[in-house]
C-alpha cells in the first residue's frame, strides 16, 4: 500500500498492462506528451509503435480502435475530453456497442476508450460533459467510473483485459486526489459496487468523483444530525451492481442518488427506476436525485458551483428526506 494520486494510479495500470501484454497499444491526440499525466512516460518506455499520437480525427480514432482490436491488438484509445467522443460517436454508438451482437458473437473487441468528464473548472460546456448516461443507454459498452486511486488502477486494468469495448472515465481535473493503492497486480471487478461507509438511515449511491462529496456529506450528517448514511460507489455503471443497491435500500428504506450528469435520463434516473421497481416495498420515502440540472455547463464559477452537486445540496436533500414521513 502507498498513497498515490488517481492520475498516477492510472499511469501505473497502463505501464503494468503494457508490460504484461505486448498486444496492448495506446493512441490518441498528444498522448506522447500527455496532457493529463495519465500517459506520461509511456512513449519513452514503450516506443512509438505502441504509443502514438494521432491526428485530430475522432471519427477515425473511435473506429480504428475497434478495427485494430478485431485484428488482434488490445487497444486503449485516449479521447482526451468526453465531449470529443461526440465527434467520434458514430463508431461508438453504431459499431462498438453493436458489432459483437450483430455478428452473432464473432467480434472480440478489447477496446478501452479513455476520457475525462465532468465540470468544476470553468472550462465551459465543450469540456465539461458527463457522458455516461448516453453510454449506458447504448447497451453494448462497459462503463467504469472510478472514485479512488485504488479503483482507478484496478478498473483501468479491468478495461484493458476486457474483451468488450469499455469506457474508462476519469473525473476531469480531479486526478490529483490521493488515496491508498495496493501493491502488486489486481483488478477491480466489473459490476461489484463498493460500500464506502455503512449506515442504516439512508442509502446514497454516488458516482465517480461524487463519492468524495457523498462521504463528506455523510460525515456532516453523522456528526451534526445523527443521520447514518450508507454510501455506495457502484464503480461500474455497466454492468451495474443492482443487488448491492437493492439490499442497502431494503435496509434503509431511503435512497438519494448523487450524479454529476444532467438530470434527464441520468444514471441517477435509471438507478431510481430500478429501485422503484425492485425494492418498492422497502421504500419509506421518495427517491431523490442530486444531479446537474438540464443545462450545458456554465463558464462562470459561481454558476458552475450552483449547478454541480455539492456537499451542501447532498446534506440538505438527505436531511429533508429523513424528516419526511412515509
Amino acid at each position, binding site marked *: 500500500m502507498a498513497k498515490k494520486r488517481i492520475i498516477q494510479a492510472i499511469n501505473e495500470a497502463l505501464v503494468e498492462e503494457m508490460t504484461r501484454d505486448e498486444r496492448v*497499444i495506446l493512441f490518441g491526440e498528444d498522448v506522447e506528451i500527455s496532457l493529463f499525466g495519465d500517459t506520461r512516460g509511456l512513449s519513452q518506455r514503450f516506443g512509438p*509503435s*505502441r504509443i*502514438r499520437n*494521432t*491526428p485530430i*480525427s475522432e*471519427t*477515425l*480514432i*473511435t*473506429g*480504428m*480502435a*475497434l*478495427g*485494430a*482490436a*478485431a*485484428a*488482434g*491488438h488490445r*487497444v486503449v484509445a485516449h479521447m482526451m475530453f468526453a465531449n470529443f467522443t461526440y465527434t467520434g460517436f*458514430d*463508431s461508438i454508438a*453504431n*459499431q462498438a456497442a453493436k*458489432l*459483437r*451482437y*450483430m*455478428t*452473432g*458473437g*464473432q*467480434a*472480440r*473487441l478489447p477496446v478501452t476508450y479513455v476520457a475525462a468528464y465532468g465540470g468544476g473548472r470553468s472550462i465551459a460546456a465543450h469540456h465539461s460533459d458527463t457522458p455516461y448516461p448516453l453510454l449506458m443507454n447504448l*447497451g*453494448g459498452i*462497459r462503463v467504469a467510473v472510478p472514485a479512488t486511486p485504488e479503483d482507478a488502477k484496478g478498473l483501468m486494468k479491468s478495461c484493458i483485459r*476486457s*474483451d*468488450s469495448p469499455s469506457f474508462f472515465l476519469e473525473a476531469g481535473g480531479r486526478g490529483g486526489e490521493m488515496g491508498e493503492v495496493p501493491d502488486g497486480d489486481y483488478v477491480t471487478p466489473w459490476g461489484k459496487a463498493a460500500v464506502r461507509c455503512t449506515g442504516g438511515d439512508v442509502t446514497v449511491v454516488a458516482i465517480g468523483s461524487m463519492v468524495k462529496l457523498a462521504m463528506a456529506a455523510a460525515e456532516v450528517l453523522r456528526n451534526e444530525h445523527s443521520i447514518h448514511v450508507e454510501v455506495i460507489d457502484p464503480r461500474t455503471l455497466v454492468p451495474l451492481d443492482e443487488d448491492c443497491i437493492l439490499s442497502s435500500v431494503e435496509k434503509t428504506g431511503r435512497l438519494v442518488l448523487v450524479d454529476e450528469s444532467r438530470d434527464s435520463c441520468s444514471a441517477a434516473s435509471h438507478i431510481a427506476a430500478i429501485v422503484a421497481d425492485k425494492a418498492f416495498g422497502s421504500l419509506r420515502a421518495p427517491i431523490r436525485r442530486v444531479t446537474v440540472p438540464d443545462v450545458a455547463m456554465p463558464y462562470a464559477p459561481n454558476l458552475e458551483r450552483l449547478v454541480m452537486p455539492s456537499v451542501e445540496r447532498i446534506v440538505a436533500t438527505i436531511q429533508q428526506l429523513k424528516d419526511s414521513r412515509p
Partner: protein
Amino acid sequence: MKENPGDNRPSPAERLAIYERMLLIRRVEERLGADFKAGKLIAGVHLYSGQEAVGVGVCQHLRDADWIASNHRGHGHFLAKGGDVRAMMAEIHAKVTGVCKGMGGTMHVADLSKGILGANGIVGGGISLICGAAYSQSLQGDGGVSVAFFGDGASTQGVMSEALNLSALWKLPMIFICENNLFSEFSRSDTVVAGRIVDRAGAYGVPGVQVDGNDLDAVWAAASQAVQRARNGEGPSFIEAFTYRMSGHVEAETGFLQGAKYRSEEEVQSWVERDPIQRQRAQLLSTQQATLDQLTDIEARVLAQVEDAVQFAIDSPPPPPEQALQFMFA
C-alpha cells in the same frame, strides 16, 4: 487465391475460378431479387449485380488473414473474400445457421475468421474499422493487407479523408476501393460529389487510379499493384472503379418510390451491355481459355450451389429465443 501478386493478369486457371465466383455472386443476387419480389425475404436487400468484377478482382489478391470491410451492398464482397454462401443465405433468411446466427442479416454479413469484418449499415462505417485493422497489421509486420470497399456516395463522409491522412502518414497497408456506380441511393453522383473522387487520394500523397470497374483485368491489375505496395510496407493506395448497379438501390424501392424515376432505361441498358460477367465470358471463349461446355458446367454448378444455399436457409431453424439476450458482451 492468387500467389504472385506481381502478375498483371490472372492465369487461365485463376480466370475460370474468378468467372465462377463472379457468376456465383450474380446468381445469388438474382435469386435474392426474385425471392424478394416473391415476398420470401424478410427485408430489402442491396444487390451487387453489375459490380462483381470489383469485389472479385480485388479479393483474388487477398488471403484469409487479410481484412476487408464492406458496406450495405456487401453480399458480393462477402462471397468474393471466400465467405460461405450457405451461411450468408441463412443469415439473410434470419436463421441460426446464418454466419451471424441471424443477428445481423443482409446488411451485416460478416465472417471474422475469413477476414470479413462485415457489411455495414452505416455509409462510410467500415473505413475507420479497416484503417485500425491495417494499423494492427502494420504493427504485426507480417505483410497483412486491409481493404475498405465503399461507394461514391461514401466518399463524402469525412472519415474517408481522415483515413487517407492517417494511413498516408503511418504508411499503413490499407487499400481504398471506391466503387463508383454513379449513384448514391437515388442521387446521381455528380449532384452530390464535387470533382473526381480519386483526386482526394492525391491530396494526401496516396497513389490513386481510376479503372473500369466492369473490366476484371483492369481491376485485377490495379489491385495487384496496390496489394503489393501494401505488403511491402509502402503504404496505402486508392482505386476508383467505375461500375454500375444493374439492380436498383435496394430491392424494395419500387414500393416506396411510388413510380418516381431516377435513371433511364437506356442508361441501364447501356450498362447491361458492359456486363462484367458477359465480358469475362466472351473473353474466356474468344481466347479459348474455356470451352462453352466448361462454362455451361460452371453455370450449372453455380445454380446448384445457390439452390442448395437457399434450401439450407429455408430448412434451418430460426434462432432460439434466449439468443436475443446473448452476444452483447464477450
